């Protein structure tokens, strides 16, 4: 069964040197495992770009057309900005968070479904390296789509950037939080229905009601107070503040909410990985 060597002649069989003989540190080993996972995930996003990158760009472009030339002028200004300027940060953030989530949930569940997640589970990679590898793949897709959608928006509207660093920080942190969330969803999912329930019945409604299309100051009670229980409201408003300098909520609280979600999701995912939830019988 020995194959021929393209550099000449058949190769005699010998098992490769054992990694157990090497002097690699656990940290170094996990770092390489993490980088390998990131490379695989990024490659996946780029390989199937008609599924991963194109659809959200088309969908969001339709929003720009509807809320710009078609409806925007009739709606008028909101908080001192044109309506399209006002909704653009929310539309970008909506694309970032949903795609970060969906990338991880579909990739990890696909790996579970085809059982090739076992490649990682039988290896010495730590749970942290596995989680972070998948999450960075989700963050890559979320931010890539966020950047593309932002560029598309510039075809329709002038977009100021009041606080560039804060804008980037909010986008990255939101993306991380939802990537971790997608990881947890994929771990507990048993079939394809389970990975579409959260995006359809939780994320989309919360995003639509999270101040993407309106300011919560326009709402009467009790809906205004109820809206403050929606975590996506804080993320959308923090991002809007970064771009427009305008927000319905204090930025410090928005960052606190983001950090609570990141730490909470991370801790839950690691604990579930250690117990092998959805991975080991």
């Amino acid at each position, binding site marked *: 069964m020995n194959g021929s060597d393209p550099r000449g002649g058949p190769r005699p069989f010998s098992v*490769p*040197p054992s990694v*157990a003989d090497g002097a690699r540190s656990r940290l170094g080993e996990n770092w390489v495992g993490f980088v390998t996972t990131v490379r695989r995930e990024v490659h996946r996003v780029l390989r199937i770009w008609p599924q991963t990158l194109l659809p959200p760009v088309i969908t969001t472009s339709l929003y720009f057309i509807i809320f710009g030339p078609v409806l925007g002028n009739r709606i008028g200004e909101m908080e001192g900005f044109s309506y399209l300027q006002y909704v653009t940060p929310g539309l970008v953030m909506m694309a970032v968070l949903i795609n970060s989530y969906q990338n991880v949930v579909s990739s990890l569940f696909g790996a579970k479904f085809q059982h090739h997640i076992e*490649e990682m589970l039988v290896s010495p990679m730590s749970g942290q390296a596995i989680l972070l590898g998948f999450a960075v793949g989700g963050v890559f897709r979320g931010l890539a789509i966020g950047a593309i959608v932002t560029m598309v928006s510039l075809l329709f509207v002038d977009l100021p950037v009041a606080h560039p660093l804060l804008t980037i920080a909010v986008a990255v942190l939101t993306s991380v939080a939802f990537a971790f969330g997608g990881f947890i969803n994929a771990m507990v999912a048993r079939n394809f229905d389970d990975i579409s329930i959260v995006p359809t019945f939780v994320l989309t409604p919360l995003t639509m009601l999270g101040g993407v299309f309106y300011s919560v100051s326009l709402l009467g009670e009790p809906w205004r107070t109820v809206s403050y229980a929606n975590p996506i409201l804080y993320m959308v408003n923090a991002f809007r503040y970064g771009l427009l300098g305008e927000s319905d909520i204090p930025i410090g609280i928005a960052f606190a909410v983001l950090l609570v979600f990141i730490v909470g999701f991370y801790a839950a995912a690691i604990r579930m990985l250690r117990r092998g939830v959805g991975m080991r*019988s």
Partner: protein
Amino acid sequence: MPPKPAPPALRIRGLRKTYKNGVEALQGVDLDVAQGEFYGLLGPNGAGKSTTIGIVTSLVNRSAGSIEVFGVDTENDPGGAKRLIGIVPQELNLNQFEKPLHIVAQQAGYYGIPWREARERAAECLQWMGLWDKRTVMARSLSGGMKRRLMIARALVHGPRLLILDEPTAGVDIEIRRATWELLEQINASGTTIILTTHYLEEAEQLCRRIAIIDRGRIVQDTDTRSLLQQLATETFVLDPVEPIAEIPDLPDFAPRLRADGSIEVEHARGSSLNELFQVLDRAGVRIASMRNKANRLEELFLRLVEHHPEVRP
């Protein structure tokens, strides 16, 4: 002070697994596999083979018991134990949308091997398996035999000292099966300990120097292959008459049976002579055109062992 003896490649003590539905898949498995061994783990469906392997490779959680791989406890140092193990599972678990070169190189990466070296190792493994020409096609387009070989390449890329193969030749044609046997013998000859589970008992008889038989979650036999086969007291032969016969002659010592195709099946005690059989047949005017061994010897023994261990039945 005498040198410390080398630890076994695999030591299992008191391994138990009870699934959430209450099924006791393992009821206290003890197993020792010496370094360099080619070890067969046989058992009927649901006997506990895959559960045992799943626990050793950390894909299944144990309920009780301990496992050491080359002296490394899989509970205390799971990473250290995992570095020593390569696994070829029963079920195809390849990413069907990846290329073989990437699949094998990524596996090396998960073991901490940097990308450049990982690609070199992957290239070598694919060449050994005769998959170099297929390195850039999608895994889903490979034939069943190629996918099996790709899984072996993937399991070898980090240089495991213990290679575990769960039904590696299931569903492949005889040519590929023979080629896989040859490859496994080479891997074992290079110093890698191999544990093989298989339904093909001919495979176990051909390859394994030591065999354990597991049934209902317990080891019912664990010995070297030769000793195991010596336990078999009789062999079954099939005799093909030159002309069809309506009735078999009186052969009380051979428990004869007329088969549907007209051949005669006889049981023969090991060590006794077959001459008497042919003399009786000759006297009865039955001429024999050919004779063959009915079944794989190990298969017969396996069935007897599994059937005659009522103590492991619930």
